[in-house]
Structures are given as C-alpha cells and as structure tokens.
C-alpha cells in the first residue's frame, strides 16, 4: 500500500507543473491567509515585547492610588520624599536609596509625512537615578541634558518617526524653546519618549510634585516589604507595582483588540481559501479522472488514491503557508510603526515575526489544506472505474 501511495503521489507531484494554474490558486490563497495572520500578530507581539522589555523585575513604580497609568497619577513632593524612606528599597553606592521621581507631560509632534495631525509624545522629567533604574538605556549620540537647562534627550524611536525631534532641533512647548542635545537607545518603550530634568519640567509646566516614583527593589522580598510599608502609612494613598507587571498590564487591551481583529480576518479569509482550495482540488481530480480510473483498473487501491490527493493538497498548502510567512517576514519584520499606548501617548515599536508565529501560520495552512483536500480526495477514491474510463 505504501509503495502504491508513493507511486501515485510521485505522478501527481510531477504533473503539477503541467497544470500549474489551479495549483497556484491554493498556494497564493494560503500565502495570503498566512501573511495576513502573521503580520497582524507580529504587530501585537512587537507592541507587547517593546512594552514588556521596558519593565524590570527589580524596579517598582509607585502611582497615586487607583490611577493605573502615569498620565492619571500625581504625587506631592512630600509624598515622594516619604516613599524614598520606605524599607525594601536598595541603596546606591552613596548609601542613599535608588529612586527617581518622574513627571510625565504630553507634547504634540508631527508624524513624519503628515503635515497636519500631531501625535502625543511623552516628555518625561527625570532625576539622575532614572538612568540607574534603566541600565539598558544608552546615549548614542550627543550628550545628556544639563539639569536646570531646557534641554531634551530623545529616544531613537521618536527621532525616527516624528518630525522636529532630531539632534540639534528645537521643540517648542509652553512658550519656551527646548533644545534636543542627545539621542538615546534602550530597545524598549522608553525609546518612545523625550527626557529632561525633572526640576526644569516642574517649573515650566507648573507641576509641584511628580507623576510617579520609581525605586530599585532590595532583594527578592524587597517588593513585599515596600508594599506593606506603603499601605501601612496613613499619610499615603498609593499603588505600588513591580515595573514589569505595570507594563504587562498596559499591553492587555491592545493584545486583545488585535487578537480579535486577527481572528476575524483570518477566519473569513481562511473560509475563502478553503473554498478556493476545494475548487482547485476538485478540478485537479476531475482533470485526472481517466488517469485515476486507469490506475484503479490495473490494481491500485482506493485508499492510496485518497492519500495521494491529500498529500498533494497538503504539500501545496505548506508551500503557500511558507510563502506567506516569508512574505510577512520580508514585508513586515522590524517595520517601525507607532500607536497609542495606555498613557494616551505614542509607543513606537517594531513588528516582530517570531518563529512561533510562523509555526502557527503553517498549522493554519495545513488545516486549510486538509479540509480543502479531503472532499475531493474522497470523490477521487470513490469514482467508479467504469465511469472514470468513459469520461472524455
């Protein structure tokens, strides 16, 4: 039986070039499905990993109680000072707790190639420890801002995607000019921001306190100690979160939305592709009715015929799926886009076509190939020999 199947499959596959048009329908149809599926999920993956990479396990972020995102949060300066003295915070080389009070302001910048509509960009006022708390962040061009001066350093993502934020340019905010003196890279969501000294941000934007305080955690139980102490202090109503959890929480809505979109679009397209595959395989089987009947007449069994048709469909589906995955990779991988994050500001991120996504795409294409091949294969195997031979 195995040799029979192999023989028929061999004939089938060798004859594909002679009837390439219907085969191409399956291949292209599935390439389309897999490309769309992979591209959409690559967007979701890229967004999530950019945000998640920004969060560390050994850093906690403290916000005003119930505010969820930094944009909604606000702490007084005294509260910030109380927070710094809490247990569970790691001390730096100078013996003082590593902590950075940060204030978040939104500025509008024009998207590249879009003359009219501005997008919201985070401007973050930080204390010196902010750089200790984000060890991945490196200034790659220019220099750091000077405290007390209206100087900004700009994340690589912002510098690429938005106009007027390149090195040396001037950003106008609240009646004052700010000079971009450096560019930084971090490979995560921080690259979507502009940074400056918190004190100059406070005076310019009339903020007395800060949006959040980030602290370095001391050891594995640091967070529990800190959280316990914060909730026990009657002077404070704040929420503390491990930074990584804070960022993971922000990706949930986006992942869900894109997940639903990808699901619906892929489902509808997959149905279309199933119909197309059925069509092509029926045509392929019909075109070879005589040939199949001849094989049956000289002693080939029904099952090998069925299996060989299935193998052909699966093979075409797999080729299509691979083609789609490659197309998605070439067109979309590392494509830089930006969208709105939880803070109502832009998050710049890259599409990420991961091996896992490719495998999922291929599984989809194989399933479609199986459905598309099964019915025609059954018809081929059931075709009475006499009818098949009589057909023109």
């Amino acid at each position, binding site marked *: 039986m195995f040799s029979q199947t192999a023989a028929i499959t061999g004939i089938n596959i060798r004859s594909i070039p002679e009837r390439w048009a219907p085969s191409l*329908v399956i291949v292209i149809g599935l390439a389309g499905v897999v490309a769309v599926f992979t591209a959409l999920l690559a967007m979701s993956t890229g967004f999530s990993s950019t945000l998640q990479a920004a969060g560390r396990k050994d850093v906690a972020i403290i916000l005003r109680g119930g505010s969820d995102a930094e944009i909604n949060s606000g702490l007084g300066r005294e509260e910030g000072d109380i927070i710094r003295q809490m247990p569970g915070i790691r001390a730096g080389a100078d013996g003082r707790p590593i902590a950075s009070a940060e204030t978040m302001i939104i500025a509008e910048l024009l998207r590249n190639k879009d003359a009219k509509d501005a997008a919201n960009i985070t401007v973050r006022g930080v204390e010196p420890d902010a750089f200790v708390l984000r060890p991945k962040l490196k200034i790659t061009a220019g220099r750091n801002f000077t405290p007390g001066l209206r100087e900004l350093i700009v994340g690589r993502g912002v510098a690429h995607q938005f106009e007027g934020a390149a090195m040396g340019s001037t950003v106008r905010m609240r009646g004052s000019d700010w000079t971009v003196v450096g560019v930084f890279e971090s490979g995560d969501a921080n690259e979507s921001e502009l940074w400056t000294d918190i004190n100059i941000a406070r005076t310019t934007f009339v903020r007395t306190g800060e949006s959040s305080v980030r602290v370095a955690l001391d050891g594995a139980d640091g967070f529990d100690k800190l959280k316990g102490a914060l909730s026990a202090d009657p002077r404070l109503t704040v929420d503390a979160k491990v930074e990584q959890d804070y960022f993971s929480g922000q990706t949930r809505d986006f992942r869900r939305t894109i997940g639903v979109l990808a699901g619906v679009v892929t489902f509808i397209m997959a149905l279309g592709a199933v119909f197309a595959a059925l069509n092509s395989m029926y045509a392929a089987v019909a075109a070879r009715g005589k040939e199949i009947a001849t094989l049956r007449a000289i002693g080939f069994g029904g099952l090998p015929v069925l299996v060989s048709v299935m193998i052909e469909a699966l093979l075409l589906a797999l080729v299509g799926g691979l083609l789609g995955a490659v197309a998605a990779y070439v067109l979309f991988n590392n494509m830089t886009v930006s969208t709105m994050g939880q803070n109502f500001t832009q998050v710049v991120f890259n599409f990420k076509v991961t091996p896992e996504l490719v495998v999922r795409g291929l599984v989809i294409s194989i399933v479609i190939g199986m459905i598309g091949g099964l019915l025609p294969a059954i018809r081929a195997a059931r075709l009475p020999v006499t009818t098949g031979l009589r057909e023109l």
Partner: protein
Amino acid sequence: MTKTGFVVANLFRKKTRTILTVLSVIMAFLLFGLLQSLNSVFNSGADFVGATRLMTQARVSFTQALPLSMVPKLEAVPGVARVAYSQWFGGVWQENTQIFTFAVDPQRYHDAYAEWVMPEEQWQAFEQTRTSMVAGKMLADKYGWKIGQKIPLSSNIYPQKGGSKSWAFDLVGIYDGKDDNWRKQTNAVFINHDYFDEANLFGKGRTNFYILKLAPGTDAAQVSKTVDAMFENSPDETKTQTEKDFNLSFVKQIGDIGLIVRWILFAVFFTLLLVVGNTMAQSVRERVPELAVLKTLGFTDGSVLGFVLAEAVALCLVGGVVGLVLATLLGAMVEQATGGQFRLQVDGVIWAIGIGAILVMSFAVGLLPALRARSLKIVDALAGR
C-alpha cells in the same frame, strides 16, 4: 433559449465549481465591507459635525489645562458667538468601565450645542443643582440610570478635597441627539464644572478645552488664527482647530493601523483575483470546442466574448452583493453588541466603492478568457489544437 438563459445554464453546469467560486467571492467582499468601514473610521471622522464650532486647547497637548481667565478674552474675538468649556474628568463606572465624562458650564454648553436635545426644565435643573449630572440616552439606557438617582462615579484623575476619588452626582437629565447621527453619540456624561472645580483637590479654575461657537458666516480659519496669535508666547499657548479636525486628531492617535488595513485589503484582493480568474479561465478552456460550435452556428465573435464576460460579471455580482449584505449585517451587529462604542457602518459610500470594485474585478478576471474566446479560430478549436 435567451442569451441570459444560456449564461445561467452555463454557470450551473458545474454546480460545485460555481457555488465554491461564489462562496469565495462572498468571503472576499464580506472582508472588503468590514475593512472599508474600519478604514473609514480612521479617515473621515465625523462628517456631520459642522464647521460652526472651533476647539481651543493648549498647544503642548490638551492634557495641559488652560486657565478659565481666558473666557473674556475669547469672547472678545470678533465672530465668536459663544464660548463654552469642558474638562476631562476621567470618569469610571463601577469597577473598571471608563465613561466619557466632562465637567462643563451647563448654560454655556447648552448654548454652544443646539444638537443635544433635552427638556428645558432638565437644562435648568442641570444649571441650578450643584451636584448635577446629565447623561446621554444611550448610556442611561445601557446602565438603567433614571432621573433622580444618585450616580456614583469615580475619577481616575481627580481626587476630592478629602482625597477620595469616589464622586457621586445627581442625575437630573437625559439628553438625546437631534438626528440619527447625533443620537448615536449620546454616550457621554456632563457634570457641573462649578461643583467639580470647588470640590476637586488640584488645579483651580482650569479646563482642557474651549468650544467657540461661531456667528453665522464667520471665517473659521481667521478666528482660529486670531485666537492662537493672542496667546502666542504666553505660558498658555493655544491650538485652535475645527471640531471635525479635533475629533479626527483623536482617531489619528491610533496611528499606523490604517496602513495595515490597506495591506490586508490588498492581500485579500490579490488572492481573490487569482481564485476567480483561474476558475473563469478554466471554464473557458474546457469549453473551447463548444465555443467553436457556437461560432460555427453563426454567433459573432462579439457575442461569444459577451457570453464569457457575462458569466464573470454574474459570478462576481452575486458573490459581491451577498458579501456586502453580510458585511452590513455583521457591522450592525458589532455596533449593537458594543453599545455603539465601535461603529462599523457599511454605508452608502462603501456600497458604492464595493459595487465599483465588483465591476472592476469582473472585467479583470473575465476579460482575458473572453478575449481568448473571441479570437478562437473555428477550425483550430474544433480540431482540438
């Protein structure tokens, strides 16, 4: 047999193939309709909003509040008929449901927005009750709010003086829209700005947006220039734009998704073109001898071309229209299910584009086989060459 009958009979000769082809066309146009309506959300914004109102916000960003002391200055600008203001409250209902909540001056807001319809005594109650709130009809229906109830809303931004972020307001009115478009927008809550400003812990006398209602015949661009020039180089620089552009700028924040949608459409159409095109080509190929017989019987080259083309048009038209109908229904269902938050409207414009796409597609897939049928040489075709 009529020509139409002939075309139909040909279509049904290979039932499975015709049905499968039509089904894939249906799927393609179902996607087309849904994605186009999604796309139009990103591109057109709310067209029904007239240009009679301008929105003024802080130039840095609307999250930076502007002082209320700007009101008299704005009122003095020629062409401005009424100045209203509104402050984003960050309302949250129960655990985690965000509600569009704005603190407004009731009288001013009423004057600026004639589109919101509410009985006069409710407008008065809104103005005179300190802790008042009015809710859109859609919202009130959704949560079963009744006039006279005390509605607890918390703010994810503003604590009260005592530090608590739980607020409560008396529902004194439920507003509706003046027409269908506005009725679909009644998903916001308005609260009394005076009370908000007094009870709120931070930032006295400020607001996020000014709404400038223009006198009839005023040049909107001129007013917006005048306003922005007035506050230039002050700590509160402004950006003034029409209400439509303002609404659009919110949608634009979502960014590059529109681009992705266009890529998907492209992929779907490319796929579809191949599927249907191939099916048509195949059915012509199989019928070469028949077409030759037709020509022998005296049918002209042109009418043979017509037969083949008509088949393509019929396939695409049936599939396309069914697909668009499905998309319309599904879009309406999504809108219903999300309580109007997510508007997927397959409207007249999308139908027009869809029909256009159907026609273009029919010719794209039908023309090559049709031309081939036309140029058939009878002798060669009958001989099977």
